[in-house]
């Protein structure tokens, strides 16, 4: 498997879906001014108004714009998980973490609020913070650290006479972006974000260790047809282009064996190569089919 994840999102339908949903729902809620639907706290919504449906949806949309951006960035970073698990398993695991974290957080919150006479934990986190934090554990577990680097600060932080004071050194690895984004996300929602983040991370640990069952067995029904139809058709496209490459005299000399395992995920690069190799025989096909997205872009390109 290649070290670098392929650029773009065309090979990551679930990640794309998660990113779009994370941005789209808050946007729609904002323009129709129904943002408050996703704002959840024990008092008054649960204790007074008994709006328990909020427990099911509080993860769907972040109320705060910063959280929306952070979550979208984190979903993008987590795309490696989709690569490891495959789209179908990935979306099933996401759904499972959604269920587990929702149950865990809301039951903990209700328990705390019912047993302790005064409200010490009122607010709920907004957005998919719990899901993301649970997946964070999976990410750490399955993604090897590729490299690390030190940032040396040229001057010792304190005065140079101090004997024990060494040169400051910052050790970072290739995952520090995701780490810091998750850290910011938790910090951004205050104490609630940190507590719920920790609880959800534990939830992820339990799931991965098998304490909370279902990671390997639970699969979403129907979703295969709904979401992945396009992926399948694109897959066949990849196969077709592969056939063309093998027939193409320019590619005959190259070792196809080393390329084949890449194809499942690296469809982009292969397709790019195909296009350039076919460039000198454009007239073979009729006007190529232009999907709506391409046409959209063509409007700006031409």
């Amino acid at each position: 498997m290649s070290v670098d994840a392929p650029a773009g999102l065309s090979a990551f339908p679930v990640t794309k879906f998660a990113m779009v949903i994370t941005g789209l729902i808050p946007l729609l809620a904002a323009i129709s001014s129904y943002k408050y639907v996703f704002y959840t706290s024990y008092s008054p919504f649960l204790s007074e108004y008994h709006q328990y449906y909020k427990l099911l949806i509080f993860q769907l949309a972040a109320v705060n714009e910063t959280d929306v951006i952070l979550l979208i960035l984190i979903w993008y970073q987590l795309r490696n998980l989709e690569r490891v698990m495959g789209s179908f398993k990935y979306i099933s695991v996401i759904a499972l973490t959604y269920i587990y974290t929702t149950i865990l957080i809301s039951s903990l919150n209700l328990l705390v609020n019912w047993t302790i006479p005064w409200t010490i934990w009122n607010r709920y986190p907004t957005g998919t913070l719990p899901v993301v934090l649970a997946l964070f554990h999976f990410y750490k577990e399955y993604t090897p650290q590729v490299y690390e680097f030190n940032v040396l600060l040229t001057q010792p932080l304190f005065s140079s006479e101090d004997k024990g004071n060494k040169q400051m050194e910052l050790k970072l690895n290739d995952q520090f972006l995701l780490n810091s984004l998750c850290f910011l996300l938790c910090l951004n929602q205050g104490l609630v974000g940190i507590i719920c983040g920790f609880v959800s991370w534990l939830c992820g640990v339990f799931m991965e260790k098998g304490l909370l069952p279902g990671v390997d067995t639970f699969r979403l029904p129907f979703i295969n047809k709904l979401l992945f139809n396009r992926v399948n058709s694109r897959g066949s496209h990849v196969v077709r282009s592969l056939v063309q490459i093998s027939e193409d005299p320019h590619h005959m000399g190259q070792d196809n064996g080393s390329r084949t395992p890449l194809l499942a995920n690296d469809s982009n690069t292969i397709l790019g190569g195909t296009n350039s190799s076919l460039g000198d025989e454009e007239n073979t096909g009729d006007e190529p089919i232009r999907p709506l997205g391409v046409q959209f872009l063509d409007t700006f390109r031409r």
Partner: protein
Amino acid sequence: MEINGNTLILIVLILYLFFSSPGGNGVSSKYEYNQIEKLKDHLSSEYQTFQKMSFRDNFRNITGLKLSYQDIITNPSINATYPIAGKDYDNWIHNQTYELLPDEIIQKISTKVWNVSDNNLTNFYPPNITSTLMGQINLVSNNEYSQLRMPVPRYFEPATDFAQDDPPEGDSYFTDWPNYGELHNVTFQKGELSIQITHINKVSDTISGYGKKFFNSQDENWKLLRLRIEFFDKLESEKHTMNPIAIYDIRRGRILSMSQSSKFHSLFSLPHYMSVGGGLDKGDDETIFNETKALINDYWNGSNYIDTLTMGDLDTLYDNALSKCEYTVFLQLAPWNQFDKDQMKKIDEELNWPLGRPVNLTKLPPVSIQSGLLYSPDCGVELQFNDASGVRYELKVKTIRSHILLGLLLFAGQIYLLLCQMQHTNTPSSINKISFYSFSMINLVDGSLATLYLIASSVLPELYLPLILSSFSSFILASIFETRYLISIYTSQANERGVSIITLLRGNAENNDEERVTNADIPDDASIGASLYGRFFFSLIIFTFLILSSTSWPRKIRMTFEYICIIILNSYWVPQIFRNVIKGLAPRRERRRNNSPINRRQHQTPLLWKFIIGTTIIRTVPIVYVFTYSSNIFRHHRDPRFVVFLSLWLLFQLSIMYSQDILGARWFLPQHSIPEGYIYFKPVSLAHLAKHEGASKHTADCAICMSEVPVYIEEAEETHNIDQHSYMVTPCDHIFHTDCLENWMGYKLQCPVCRTPLPPI
């Protein structure tokens, strides 16, 4: 003009001159400074008088309140100069000897308007009544009562020359005014009324308006309102507008308002008139006076009234005095006894800050004024109305928001349809059959909607997000997709410019070489794009200004303009019908028959039916809504007949286009007037072929694929088995393979050899 540092500085300077205005209070000359100082002194001294006044005192030296109705009855030419000999300044009784109002009016107020509340205060009235109320207003009399003389202090007059530093002294009466009488009477019997109510909860004590603070210490019982009252006759030939401050008595549901101008400083008279009409205990009257006086004091001090006066205020006061009647307005709100204070508080909170509280907002009744009386002391006009109502502003905003979102969906649908259409016609030949003017009309409407939405978004901050999104999406639709498409249409039709319609109908069949040579210079995409964008923005600005200014025209002209505009802008398929005729689309059956792979591109319908019908529906739905739904958000009048007419007109256009699709585009033209189009597939003569130096082999060279083209030659029998559809002969007598030339014509309608424009296939 070249843009360098100097021109940039010049532009900045010019913009500075345009947008700079005198800061602060707007004083720009010594004269104006003296004017505003005089006004401040005047108001301060009146405020001092007001402070000393108790409930039992008459008004003394306060502008507009120096005379009572009885004074003018006794002596019609009396001058309002304080003190008036023999006038009782130490008592205050609710009758015409002391008040501006005649006894009949006072009587009416107590029996017909402020007759709901008794001393028990049993009714409940909503504390927040922000809304716009609509109703009908009736004229009771405009000649029965004497007109009170209200002089304007002369220091309000503008300077007559630049050297003048000191404003004139003294007062002037209406007989001296140049354009008196314009709106100083109400002549219609029945009219439309709209009252817009907003609360003044916070005021700023600086001119800049920053740092607004709550000022009202009796917020539970009294509210200060800003009204905008408009009444006009059905034809809107006579329109009266005022923008006064009002006091709302929450316990009794009474609203009192008096217009303010340089001849009537009504702010100081509100406490006295709040208890007009009686029906209350003597003690209550005094409490009302003291409480409202405290409210006025709160407002005066909170807003720093004297120091925040600007030249704009001064001009407004003077304009109001000259051009309008003064009005005293007495309104009685309908009680909301189905709610109590706690419920109402919750409802107000939910409206103000929605959180999904368990309250039923859909059952909230409209704010309604059950009776109202308007009396003008200086014009002697009396008007009355019953039942003006309107929903709470927040609910109204909610409705408008959902309408805007629906409109957004329409835009999205239009963008989708246009993209489908653009994909359908992706070659110059197919785009060539589309009418430029049809899409220009559609584009103009979408572009103006974008600007109107943009303007609206700055006017309505509550709806900024949906409005700006609508503006953005319609702008994307108009300026990117539609203009892009228009550029392609224009480019594909560029070689037709300057060619007569008859020639076009003929499709360049004749050998009119001279004409073609003159048109050979076809501008490229970029220059066409630049000129079309320029045209687009220019027409957009002109049209938007026209629409905006038309809203202030008299009703008759406005409606004619509106109807004509709608009819014209909804004739967008007419140019396409003409275009079809010019391009001569074949009947559908014939197209099907000829649907061989060779000419499969030749006879597509230029527009997708999905696009035609979808666009028509998307563009008609808003018009149908506005003209048939009587409580539409634009307060547009109802006119179903026009909608039926418009729908029929659109249906007619659609049916013509459909018949063109079925029967051929020229079915309604007489046969002999339809000339033949240019035919690319024809036999070649030997003489012709000789020019191509291929006469010996009976072939020509295809300049595209550089191989030989076998051709059908009239004189040579042995070539007669060659399919005439396998090669094409251009009007400039060049020969190509059909495949080669068709592919080329997918990109450009120019001969690959000599660049002569080619007639589209």
